[in-house]
């Protein structure tokens, strides 16, 4: 119990650190927010500019702005975008489902590719298949995601006209009524198979791009934890009983190797989320990653602050959950 409490306490300085970094980053940034709002309006007096500055609360001292920023975050009042002039909360909640859907699709891709490849590599250890697997995994983590995305678009969209190279759903297919915001789930709930198929096709290339490095990782973890399990007695025992090799592998080894795989996948959600900045940009995917890039570029700092907070907090939460689960499962673990 103490350990859990200690682990929870550890997150407090981290949360404070995150909020400080986020706040200071955007306040050090060049670009006067009032100028950003006004854009190319030709005829604005200095008084008007001061007026808007006061309306935005930008005339107050920095520490005061920081505390009202933190208080706002805690209260659920996340401020207003300078560019879109809607509440940041609305903007982010609007973008979140697209990112979640893409992230989960990428995880699924990585599991579909990574687990069988890892199992195969482990079972046929040191064979040419294993070596090929290692090479392919390295290829997966060595490709710049923007290049992989562009190449997939070039081949499958521009060249073969097989799969769409952008956005979430073709326009001529009406979107299913929004329940979760995840198009695949919503279209199943609505029984709208045209939308489901459309959304799936649109998801294919971005999910593959985002999932590629993740697949490599999943494959390697699967391989090593499989090897560990295979070495253990009960597998040898099962083999000795004459059970066919493949069924041994699947029934016994994989089931036991799954725990570390799931942990690694969960822990890498964070880095996966970071990659979506690039992938969403390439595929015009209306998610959080694109919002962050656009907002950083336009110095729309209320949006950047909160969006980066969302990323960081997701990471902290995933880490915490993984650690606590681990402690629960394995009380001897120390941190």
């Amino acid at each position, binding site marked *: 119990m103490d350990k859990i409490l200690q682990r929870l306490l550890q997150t407090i*300085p981290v949360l404070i650190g995150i909020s400080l970094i986020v706040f200071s980053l955007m306040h050090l940034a060049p670009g006067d927010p009032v100028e950003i709002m006004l854009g190319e309006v030709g005829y604005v007096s200095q008084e008007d500019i001061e007026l808007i500055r006061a309306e935005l609360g930008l005339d107050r001292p920095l520490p005061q702005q920081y505390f009202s920023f933190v208080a706002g975050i805690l209260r659920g009042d996340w401020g207003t975008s300078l560019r879109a002039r809607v509440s940041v909360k609305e903007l982010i909640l609007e973008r979140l489902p697209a990112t979640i859907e893409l992230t989960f699709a990428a995880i699924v891709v990585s599991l579909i590719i990574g687990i069988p490849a890892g199992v195969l590599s482990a079972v046929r250890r040191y064979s040419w298949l294993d070596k090929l697997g290692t090479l392919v995994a*390295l290829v997966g983590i*060595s490709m710049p995601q*923007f290049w992989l995305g562009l190449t997939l678009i070039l081949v499958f969209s*521009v060249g073969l006209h097989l799969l769409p190279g952008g956005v979430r759903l073709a326009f001529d297919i009406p979107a299913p009524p929004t329940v979760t915001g995840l198009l695949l789930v919503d279209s199943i709930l609505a029984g709208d198979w045209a939308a489901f198929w459309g959304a799936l096709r649109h998801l294919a290339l971005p999910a593959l791009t985002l999932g590629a490095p993740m697949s490599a990782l999943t494959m390697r973890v699967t391989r090593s934890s499989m090897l560990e399990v295979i070495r253990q007695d009960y597998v040898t025992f099962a083999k000795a009983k004459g059970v066919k090799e493949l069924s041994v592998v699947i029934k016994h080894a994989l089931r036991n190797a799954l725990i570390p795989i799931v942990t690694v996948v969960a822990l890498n959600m964070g880095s996966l989320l970071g990659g979506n900045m690039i992938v969403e*940009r390439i595929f015009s995917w209306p998610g959080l990653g694109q919002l962050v890039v656009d907002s*950083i*570029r336009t110095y729309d700092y209320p949006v950047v602050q909160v969006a980066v907070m969302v*990323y960081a907090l997701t*990471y902290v939460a995933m880490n915490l959950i993984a650690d606590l689960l681990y402690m629960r499962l394995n009380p001897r673990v120390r941190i």
Partner: protein
Amino acid sequence: MNRYAARADEFVIAETLKQKLLRALQRTIGNIQEFWRLYRKNHLAVIGGAVVLIFISLAILAPYVTSHDPEAPNFRAIRRPPVWSKEGSWTYPLGTDHLGRDIWARIIYGARISLFIGFVVVGFATMIGVALGLISGYYGGRIDAVIQRVIDTLLAFPYLILATALVGVLGPGLRNIVLALLYKEWVYPCRVVRGEVLAAKEQEYVEAARTVGASSRHVMFKEILPNVLASTVVVSTLRVGSVILMEASLSFLGLGVEPPTPAWGSMVAEGRRFINTEWWISTLPGLAIFLTVLGINLMGEGLRDALDPKLRE
């Protein structure tokens, strides 16, 4: 003590020194041979090393490999196709970009930026990370807690987002990119070193050194550091690939080195407009990034196998 005896003493000292040096040299050569024997077994690692070597030599010898100025536009040769296409010619082996600059020249000069940033960032990060990792792991306690919380905080930010925001604040340019990447990069060697130190502390030879009364600095640098070096080298090599990818991503987002200096990521970004019409402008520089990073990663794997067998599996 007479002169001769002194001379003889000197001679003996010189001889032992010579022998010591010789033995050390032999040991080093032996180590290198042993290392090479292990490394060579991994064919992919050899290929990867060769690819990296080729890119490094191309970067260094760039002016001798192409006669084109990578930054000079030719307004009469815009968006020419590569040599293997019907209208291609050997004047521009990989074609030209939207300003008529030779893509081959830009790729090999671009290697300078990518490799420079990769090695410099990882170099500095390793120095910072090793120092902090040793301190953190060896002393533990409050100082360890502070360093670990800072690391946790930095790890919570996706790397690219943090780097993008930092370059946004600092402004573009080589120096600022290096700083923005260093901001988080030191965390990785630091964690590895700390882990190794914690493991080493448990081991007998450190215990022994301590009971003999060796100073903590002595223990840290003479006993622990050499043992963590192998894993640091492996991790750092693999990190070079990641940093190169990161720099390419920053350049792709328009936050790279200033034009007209060629950088691979910005070449892909600039060529992206022409993906429907002239695919090579964006595809070929991307291929260069991919090959370089793959080479480095293959090399890192080979190093891991050769230097640190216990890191395998």
